[in-house]
């Protein structure tokens, strides 16, 4: 009843090609953005922002990045953690060596560094596919973390090998370091996520995204119709690593405030991969929903016994959390193997017919 596009006529090509052709979608997204920018920071307290929402935003960015590579271009990667580490360590190195450069530019530069590293480790994708490629990217994961652990130059020879986010300002407002308020860091993460999600959405709609999907669906056919696998695959690796690098930089500078390589371990790579699988491969919206599920549900499950006033030993509640969370993942994948993105789509179809389904 409310969600029906009848009567919305497209009178120009531009209108026909817009990201959200349906007016209700546009209103929904606009409302979502208003809530995210204008309501959440004033309603949520510091715990919510710092421990729940900021990590969700950062992992969303990483998941969008990995989805470009795995969901759209069909290249399975287990190196997400490593590419995030590259972004984080590059930001740290650049900003400690040149403190006068604006931190936002440093973030983008580190994204470029991560993109470069992504290209190098994407090279095997030209010869190998599927699981074998996953193993090759696994090498990136272990090699890069080993490098950052071993070579003192990367962490300025600090005795424990940790990097810390130094205080940096943007327009006179502290945006990283301990003095930066949770609200400011939330705004920074949110802005990066929104801007780069819009860019990602447009990449996948355009020529590049179409060539990625062609490579994903059948690379030989794609090559025959004139898509260069070398350029396309490496571009997918570069752009995906750029996103992951940015997410890594934000995770140190806007969320954790400091990190060692352990923060970017293989577990993170798997986590981001699960996010896009549960969210839906080949869907930007799905990446964000998957990130929400993987980061928010465990926190919710941990806090649930206390919320309902049930006294429970910490170890017991942690174990229950892991069991329930694992069970939920299995359940979701059985019920909807295509993830939240598909559920979302089904929901929209149902809404169209509501209240008179046929």
């Amino acid at each position, binding site marked *: 009843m409310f969600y029906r596009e009848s009567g919305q006529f497209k009178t120009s090509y531009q209108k026909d090609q817009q990201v959200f052709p349906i007016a209700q979608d546009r209103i929904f997204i606009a409302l979502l953005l208003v809530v995210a920018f204008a309501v959440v920071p004033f309603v949520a307290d510091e715990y919510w922002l710092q421990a729940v929402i900021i990590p969700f935003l950062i992992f969303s960015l990483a998941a969008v990045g990995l989805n470009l590579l795995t969901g759209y271009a069909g290249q399975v990667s287990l190196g997400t953690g490593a590419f995030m580490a590259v972004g984080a360590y590059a930001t740290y190195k650049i900003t*400690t060596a040149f403190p006068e450069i604006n931190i936002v530019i440093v973030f983008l530069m580190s994204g470029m560094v991560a993109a470069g590293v992504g290209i190098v480790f994407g090279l095997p994708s030209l010869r190998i596919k599927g699981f074998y490629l996953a193993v090759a990217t696994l090498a990136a994961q272990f090699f890069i973390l080993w490098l950052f652990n071993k070579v003192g130059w990367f962490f300025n020879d*600090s005795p424990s090998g940790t990097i810390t986010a130094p205080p940096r300002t943007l327009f006179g407002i502290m945006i990283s*370091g*301990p003095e930066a308020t949770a609200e400011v860091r939330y705004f920074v993460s949110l802005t990066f996520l929104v801007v780069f999600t819009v860019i990602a959405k447009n990449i996948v709609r355009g020529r590049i995204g179409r060539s990625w999907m062609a490579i994903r669906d059948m690379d030989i056919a794609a090559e025959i119709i004139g898509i260069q696998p070398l350029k396309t695959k490496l571009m997918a690796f570069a752009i995906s690593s750029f996103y992951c690098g940015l997410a890594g930089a934000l995770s140190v500078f806007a969320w*954790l405030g400091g*990190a060692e390589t352990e*923060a970017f371990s293989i577990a993170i790579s798997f986590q981001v991969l699960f996010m896009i699988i549960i969210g839906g491969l080949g869907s930007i919206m799905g990446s964000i929903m998957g990130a929400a599920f993987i980061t928010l549900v465990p926190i919710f499950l941990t806090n649930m016994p206390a919320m*309902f006033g049930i006294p429970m030993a910490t*170890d017991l509640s942690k174990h229950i959390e892991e069991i329930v969370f694992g069970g939920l993942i299995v359940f979701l994948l059985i019920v909807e193997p295509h993830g939240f993105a598909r559920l979302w789509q089904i929901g929209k179809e149902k809404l169209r017919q509501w209240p008179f389904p046929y």
Partner: protein
Amino acid sequence: MKFRSLILGALGVAVGITGIALSKAAYAAEQFIPMLVYRTGPYAPSGIPVANGFRDYYTLVNKRDGGINGVTVTFEECETKYDTKIGVECYEKLKGKGPTGASLFNPYSTGITYQLIPKASVDKVPILSMGYGRTSAADGRVFEWVFNFPMTYWSQASAFVKYVSRQEGGYDKLKGKNIVHVYHNSAYGKEANPTLVALAKRYGYKLTLLAVDHPGQEQKATWLQIRRLKPDWVFMSGWGVMNSVAIKEAAAINFPMDHFVGNWWSGTDADVIPAGQGSVGYKSTTFHSAGSGFPVHADIIKHVYGGDAAKAKENNIGEVLYNRGMVNAMFGIEAIRTAMGKYGNKSMTGEQVRWGLENLNVENARLQALGMKDFTRGVKVSCADHETGGSLRIQQWDGTKWKFVSQWLSPMRDIVRPMIEKDAAMFAKENKITPRSC
């Protein structure tokens, strides 16, 4: 069906709200102490006894003394799995609880401590990282909110070298000796390296650094390398399951156990028992006694477990790390007591507890009153020195219990302190902190 779930939901919300209301009402004279624990995961063998030690000591203070000067101690556990990210979440969750917020944090993870150091000064919550965390936090001029008495990793490493020199018959005998450091490949494990390297230059021993990756269950390659190197001494910075695996591997290659020394996080009962007879002779450093023969343990059995010694035993009483948690809890409580001496017997804020920590002076008479005479040494913290002049002893496992095999060894402060000040100055510069004058 729908109606039913609606009612159930409303009921749940109501229960939740009354729960919140009740806990708000109960905020009378209470002192909230947050606990970051890990009772699950590969670090649980170390985490459980520590957490139990804390819990039992706080309970003891409430039941035996009626709280700290009449102010009840409240505490809440938050499971971190020794994961820095979850640790930060726990910190954010617990820092504002209680009538005056968190008194102090004991992160029990060097990684989490590193994360919390910058936050602590902003949130005005002190951190007591007792014998772990960032070594250079010993420089109180830069790290106002962080305390790591009675000793740091660097002091510990220097005391270990001192011990080796005594065993070998003098510092000149160290030349050409082969020493291996097996360490957890994390911020924690790496802490001792700079000191060991500096001392290797000074005394001419050959140092090999062997990293073991998280979680430390796979060490075959490391110990094969050690078998080839045939080192004279092995020093270990391990944690959790890594310790017992290392000791088993060492026993498997017939490494002489009395030349294998763990740091104070690598020498608890749970580490040596799995290796059975193989671990007899294994040594570790420590700064308090093992065993449950002290008056404070009798008090815990009586007041916390109602005289049920078997139940207490089940909860790790007397194990090294249990005692560590207890000592740590005691220092925290005494710091709050010190703060109360200045600000009055009410709930202390983080800032007041910080003052208490900085002016903490636990003397032997006080330890005796607490039932901890000869259990550990007193400390006297000052504004500039958050490490205090602590010292350590070496303990050895004889198959059933730990016994001391050395006198108190003081670290080489003349070497360690300048390194601490240098690192602290670097941190201050990077983070634009102006050191206090003390």
